[in-house]
């Protein structure tokens, strides 16, 4: 794979997002594969934020640490990131912001505001100057970028479109004049139709394709994108997104809506997830299907609000008091984010239990180009539902069955009545306390885990069948893991990569992998090694090593390779 990385840094509120959006569109439209991650602080103005773009001639799902181009809208960008520059790299910076002109090879001074003003345009068009300057390294003219200006600004008037074009051209020329024509990053031969989508919209679209009818949530980074996406499509997709007074209310509303018969979900992050757990337990006891997205960020407490971590796995596993059936899914990229939401709803409905989808900031906020998402592949299975007309007067909501699943009645759908409770109950749903009844109901609920385990999604395997090294990870680490495997294979190593997208219960297929050939190393973004611990518990197994990251930044192949080397796991 040939890839090319651009990092744009600046203060919040400086227009980073606008330049970023223009580039996302332009790069993907131009035909490159793209992966882009936002690194931002928990503030509205100031600070230091950056967006990194990695374009490639093959599908790309992770970042590299070194960059080809550094674009500095603030001083901190050069101070902090210049050591990341590749040999022959280019730095585009604003000398008025930097406070000096840097006379070094590859450094190009573009006073963004001044460039805009020279063209008789307002300061805000500094963004267009930056976009044009960057594009001089990616294209020989600005046709592509101009098309995006037209799409973005035509509603604001032709003047604005033309102004942006002029400023972009001036930015473009500055860099061209300084550096001349350089080789452009190689493009894929024929990528075929592509989508450009981030994790949050992929999760939300997956839910809409699965027929979610109700969502309630309380805003919390990095999950808010899901919530706002569902809210924005309320009318179009007949779904209610009700902003709750807190996450306790959100979760309880979801349980109420699902009890009443609607597919219902919520999305939150660590602190909010903590508040939801009592109601998740109630859903389990009353056998109400619910889907909960936990977009993880570093904890404990509010932790690092805008950063990433895979630190909630054991909390998800141990969510709420008592033993109850549940499943935890962990999408590794936008494709899995979309399709696993449908699967989550089906599992929840089929087994009438909570299903937790573990996302994280890395997945939530990263854009990827990807093959189109196909809603015809989303199958809706509502599980065993009876109407109040069919059920008859002797209907028992919690009738004891071998599978543990009892047909669910939608209240109001006919004369039969449904009674459910979070307190322990008998088959009819009324409260009981006898030892026998308790045992029977526990056995019934837990019997569902047999079915859940049997259909647990198998791990995704790449690399060698007879490996010397097996790298195991879960969730959003997938991209970094698989590229690490590619890189090691290129060096002649026999490596296998294992991506676990269902982290509870595990697929039995994992047993063979864990007991099979090769040294096993678990790669994950948390301090204690939560996947490792859970695998150990479920399979009485111990790996040979681990790679962990807990500084709030996403894992990438460079980091993993360095740690593998340091741990003595390579050759």
């Amino acid at each position, binding site marked *: 794979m040939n890839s090319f990385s651009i990092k744009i840094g600046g203060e919040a509120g400086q227009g980073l997002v606008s330049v970023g959006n223009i580039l996302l569109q332009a790069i993907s439209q131009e035909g490159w594969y793209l992966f882009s991650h936002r690194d931002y602080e928990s503030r509205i103005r100031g600070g230091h934020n950056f967006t990194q773009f990695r374009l490639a001639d093959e599908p790309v799902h992770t970042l590299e640490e070194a960059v080809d181009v550094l674009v500095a809208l603030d001083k901190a960008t050069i101070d902090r990131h210049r050591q990341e520059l590749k040999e022959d790299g280019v730095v585009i910076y604003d000398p008025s912001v930097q406070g000096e002109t840097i006379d070094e090879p590859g450094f190009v001074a573009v006073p963004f505001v001044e460039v805009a003003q020279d063209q008789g345009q307002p300061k805000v068009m500094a963004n267009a100057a930056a976009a044009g300057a960057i594009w001089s390294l990616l294209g020989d003219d600005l046709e592509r970028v101009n098309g995006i200006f037209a799409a973005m600004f035509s509603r604001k008037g032709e003047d604005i479109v033309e102004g942006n074009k002029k400023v972009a051209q001036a930015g473009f020329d500055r860099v061209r004049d300084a550096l001349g024509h350089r080789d452009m990053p190689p493009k894929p031969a024929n990528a075929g139709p592509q989508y450009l989508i981030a994790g949050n919209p992929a999760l939300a679209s997956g839910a809409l394709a699965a027929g979610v009818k109700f969502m309630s949530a309380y805003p919390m980074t990095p999950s808010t994108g899901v919530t706002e996406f569902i809210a924005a499509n309320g009318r179009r997709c007949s779904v*209610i997104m009700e902003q709750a007074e807190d996450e306790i209310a959100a979760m309880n509303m979801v349980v109420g809506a699902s009890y009443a018969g609607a597919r219902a979900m919520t999305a939150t992050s660590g602190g909010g997830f903590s508040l939801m757990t009592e109601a998740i337990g109630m859903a389990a006891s009353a056998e109400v299907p619910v889907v909960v997205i936990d977009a993880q960020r570093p904890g404990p407490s509010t932790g690092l609000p805008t950063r990433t971590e895979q630190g909630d796995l054991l909390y998800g596993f141990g969510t709420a008091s008592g033993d109850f059936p549940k499943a935890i899914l962990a999408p590794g990229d936008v494709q899995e984010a979309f399709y696993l939401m449908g699967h989550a709803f089906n599992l929840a409905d089929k087994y009438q239990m909570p299903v937790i989808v573990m996302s994280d900031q890395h997945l939530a906020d990263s854009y990827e180009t990807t093959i189109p998402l196909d809603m015809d592949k989303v199958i809706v299975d509502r599980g065993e539902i009876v109407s109040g007309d069919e059920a008859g007067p002797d209907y028992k909501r919690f009738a004891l069955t071998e599978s543990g699943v009892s047909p669910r009645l939608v209240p109001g759908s006919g004369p039969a009545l449904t009674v459910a409770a979070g307190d322990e109950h008998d088959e009819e*749903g009324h409260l009981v306390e006898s030892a026998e009844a308790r045992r029977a109901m526990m056995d019934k609920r837990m019997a569902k885990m047999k079915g859940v385990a049997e259909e647990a999604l198998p791990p995704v395997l790449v690399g060698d069948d007879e490996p010397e090294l097996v790298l195991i990870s879960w969730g959003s680490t997938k991209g970094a893991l698989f590229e690490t495997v590619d890189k090691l294979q290129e060096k002649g190593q026999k490596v296998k990569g294992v991506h676990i997208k269902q982290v509870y219960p595990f697929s039995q297929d994992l047993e063979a992998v864990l007991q099979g050939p090769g040294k096993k190393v678990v790669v994950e973004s948390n301090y204690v090694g939560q996947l490792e611990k859970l695998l150990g518990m479920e399979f009485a197994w111990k790996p040979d090593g681990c790679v962990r990251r807990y500084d709030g930044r996403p894992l990438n192949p460079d980091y993993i390779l360095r740690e593998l080397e340091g741990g003595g796991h390579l050759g």
Partner: protein
Amino acid sequence: MADKLFQTTPRETAWCPGCGNFGILNALSDALEELSLEPHDVLFVSGIGQAGKTPHYIKGNVFNTLHGRTLPAATGAKLVNPELTVFAIGGDGDGYAEGGNHLLHAMRKNVNITYLVHDNQVFGLTKGQASPRSDQGFVTGTTPQGVSLESFSPLATAITLNAGFVARSFSGNKSHLVETIQAAVNHEGFSIVDILQPCVTFNKINTFQWYRSRVYDLKDDENYDPSNRTAAWEKAQQWGDRIPIGVFYKVDRATLDEAHPASANGPLVKQGVEYDGVKEILDGFAVNG
């Protein structure tokens, strides 16, 4: 005589003999009988506490949820199926302590449900601790020196928040309670009925006799106007030797279900995947090179 539709089931209750909950149960059942509803049109969402058990003894759909969380659960159900007549039922601890935040917001949102609070001024199920409704001086296991705080006023709070229908009734006055519940159900919007209910075991102060000798019906005052918010708020301050019961305040406001355009085509529980809508969304992600 034909069976009553909502008649209480012969199930043994978990209540003490003489409990005020019996009066509420009977009144609720009678109130529904006359409302030309069928049990399957009705959903009782209840909390945890002695009050929260009520729906298990009456005919209807039941969801007995968590302590303090009746209102959000009832809200979720009502939003996806406005055709259901939804009750939220719980104790004073459930609603005014654990669930306080939800109460504020359910009133603000004007969810079209009826909230019955069995107000015995004590935590019954957990065997007699102070509730936000306990009177000053009330000695309990958690307040051995007696409650020092002023008691919470649910009605004044509800009126402050412009709740749709704000009433108080008394479990010892069945006809009043039946009438009040019916009016609450018939009101389009959030209705709260705080029901004075003796706890015969853990509240030896606020007994049947205590309440009976104090309550008077707001209707006895011909000049009382439940559309006058300021007067209603002042009336809600009255507590002690004389305790008003009846409808304190009523206002018509848009309900939460009306605020969501998604419900325009009928209850969401009857709707499936919006294929075209989702397709449109997905097409929007396409890169047009």
